[in-house]
């Protein structure tokens, strides 16, 4: 079962949330960030090249121009491969674990998997981010030493930064699946 909804992030940009329910014990949420805009790309390139041309008129060395082109290309490739995240996916599988995948604009994917045994809970937290107070979804990990403690907080959807309405949807689905984990422990 698959459906798609449109939300907005904390800056007002448009996000698309795709939900896939594979089975009662496996769900996937895919948040697509806004793509790289042609306007900002053109602006940055023009600035760099104008600066290089200014330097060229000062020192009369054509190496400056080639260097500027080189830097622009490398910078763009580096940005697409290391910085610009296109999609963030959360896959939650009952009794196996939670997996977060970030897909970069160049196609690279970086995945982290947390086993269900280490997950204490999934909660929505508040944070102060620059001049705003934002909400973010995070996974609380169990502390091996102290049974009621939290050893680490892993934030989710860090580059998409959706607003509270989107987070609530994801949170409710996750809690339905995590409820299976908690039920037998309370009954035993």
């Amino acid at each position, binding site marked *: 079962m698959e459906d798609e909804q449109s939300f907005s992030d904390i800056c007002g940009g448009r996000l698309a949330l795709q939900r896939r329910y*594979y*089975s009662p*014990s*496996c769900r*996937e949420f895919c948040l697509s960030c806004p793509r790289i805009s042609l306007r900002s790309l053109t602006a940055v390139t023009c600035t760099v090249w104008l600066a290089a041309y200014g330097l060229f008129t000062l020192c009369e060395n054509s190496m400056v121009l080639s260097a500027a082109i080189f830097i622009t290309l490398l910078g763009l490739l580096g940005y697409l491969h290391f910085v610009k995240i296109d999609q963030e996916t959360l*896959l939650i*599988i*009952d*009794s*196996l674990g939670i*997996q977060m*995948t970030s897909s970069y604009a160049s196609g690279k994917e970086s*995945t*982290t*998997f947390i*086993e269900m*045994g*280490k997950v204490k809970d999934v909660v929505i937290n508040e944070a102060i981010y620059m001049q705003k107070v934002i909400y973010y979804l995070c996974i609380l990990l169990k502390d091996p030493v102290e049974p009621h403690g939290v050893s680490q907080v892993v934030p989710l959807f860090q580059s998409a930064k959706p607003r509270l309405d989107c987070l609530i949807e994801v949170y409710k689905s996750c809690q339905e699946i995590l409820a*299976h984990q908690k*039920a*037998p422990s309370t009954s035993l």
Partner: protein
Amino acid sequence: MGLVSRGTAAAGLGPARAAVRPRPPDAVPNLISTPPPEGAAPGSSRVPSMVLKAFFPTCCASADSGLLVGRWVPEQSSAVVLAVVHFPFIPIQVKELLAQVQQASRVGVAVLGTWCHRRQEPEESLGHFLEGLGAIFSHEPWLQLCRERGSKFWSCKATHRQVPTCPATSGEDQVMLVFYDQRKVLLSQLHPPAALPDRQAGDATASAVGLAAVFDTVARSEALFRSDWFDEGPVRLSHWQSEGVEASILVELAKWAAGPICLLLTCLLSLVSAASACRICPSGGCCFAAFQAQDRARLHGSLHGFMRPTRMFKLWPLSFVWSKLSTCEQLRHRLEQLTLVFSTQKAKNPTQLMRKANMLVSVLLDVALGLVLLSWLHRKDRIGQLADALIPVADHVAEELQHLLQWLMGAPAGLKMNRALDQVLGRFFLYHIHLWIGYIHLMSPFIECILWHVGLSACLGLTVALSILSDIIALLTFHIYCFYVYGARLYCLKIYGLSSLWRLFRGKKWNVLRQRVDSCSYDLDQLFIGTLLFTILVFLLPTTALYYLVFTLLRLLVVTVQGLIHLLVDLVNSLPLYSLGLRLCRPYRLAAGVKFRVLEHEAGSPLRLLMQINPLSYSRVVHTYRLPSCGCHPKHSWGSLCRKLFFGELIYPWRQRGDKQD
């Protein structure tokens, strides 16, 4: 259900229409003697509402029908399938094989269920027959995986024969299929490593938790994967190696030859180190020890003795010089590494093996780069050019220093110096430079020969060549070091004198016993002399301070250049190239974790996932497998460095191993 099938099998009838079946006569007595005990099936503890996960190897997905063999992990409600046993088989032989594997690998291998791959028309009889097998091999829960011809979606059932305590839960469980690549999981190594299971226990009580248990199970069941289809064994298995055990002739030859070669090289290295230790230490003590020793333990003892110079070196000036040269440090480091690599002891764990491999690759790369450097140096007679350029450069440096001193003796930067002290210090340093230039000119005929021989040492490695360069720089700038020491000592004395006389001026005294400043009543003549000396020292301070400043800056410049060279040497020494290469070419060997992908899914059929290995990132590879370097790092923080500079204490940029900490 169980009783009916048991009865049918016992009668020896079985499904006559089935193409393959086990031979009944031997099976019969076994059946009757081992019925599944009611209500007490082994390994039946499980979390009731956990989804059952079946880890299935991708290599068995196209195998013929048969029995599933693997390990059941009750805490996570997961079944790790290791192999498929094909028809025809005799149950006793299967059980014997499993018992053998269990004993060899300490993994609780058992028959987990049946696997049905229907290639032709569906056969109901096969279905009944497979269910009947559940009576022969009792396991709780009993898995039944089935795959239709031409269909991607499998059907899975897990049944419990034990009557459930809660009547609401049915005897069947939800099953989730997780495919894994057996070869990759077998060869991979998880970081951080899961705790090793207790080998003393009879059965593997795995302290590996979660998915590490799957990796652990597959890695330890190598005994199961040794037989292939071409063996004449009684049981036919399907696993990742069943189509033939792969091996490479070169690898086998290398393994066979490694033993004698390692022994030979270890003896050679011990002789080399014992010989160099003997040459340094003229007192025959260590020679005696080295050549008397017949067994390797004593040779190793002398080797370790060589490593601790403070114990072995008897001749003081030579040992002092030896410990200051970074070339010797580097050679010693390399000798240590080579000894470790070629030691005949096998590596105890994978980390040690990686370390040995990294050291070997590092040494080989070093030698290769050194040979490249050597060929470049000898190509256009660059050594001759270098030798010709060296003397003029040294002369030029000395001349520049002379100009600097003339400038200091005048009115440097408009400051007014104390004439007499200025002249004394300036003449003293000028005379030093004069001696130095004379010494350089004395050496000049031999420079080319020395450089040529030193250039040959580049075949020992690039790091050795760089260390020699660093040492040559240190030797050529020895006069700057001397000037720095003189200036620093003078300044230090002045500062201490000033601070002590300042206390006298205020009527206080430093109490050595209590380590604090106490008041003290001085006599008049003491106060008079003290004040006089204080005034003299204060007025001479700018001159001394200026000389100290200039020579300290020069010294710091030289130290920076040497530091950069050492940084480069450190980089070549400690970079784990073998691990990086492994991460590049065989990323599944270094695993940070796993990742899952959901395969095509349709409603009604169980969920299918593909488990892949998530490789370690490059930065974590470098961080985990970084080789220990010489340890010649500056031990000061910036604050203590500034404090030492202000008070005129001597700075030793790097501590060599074996120096006393003060």
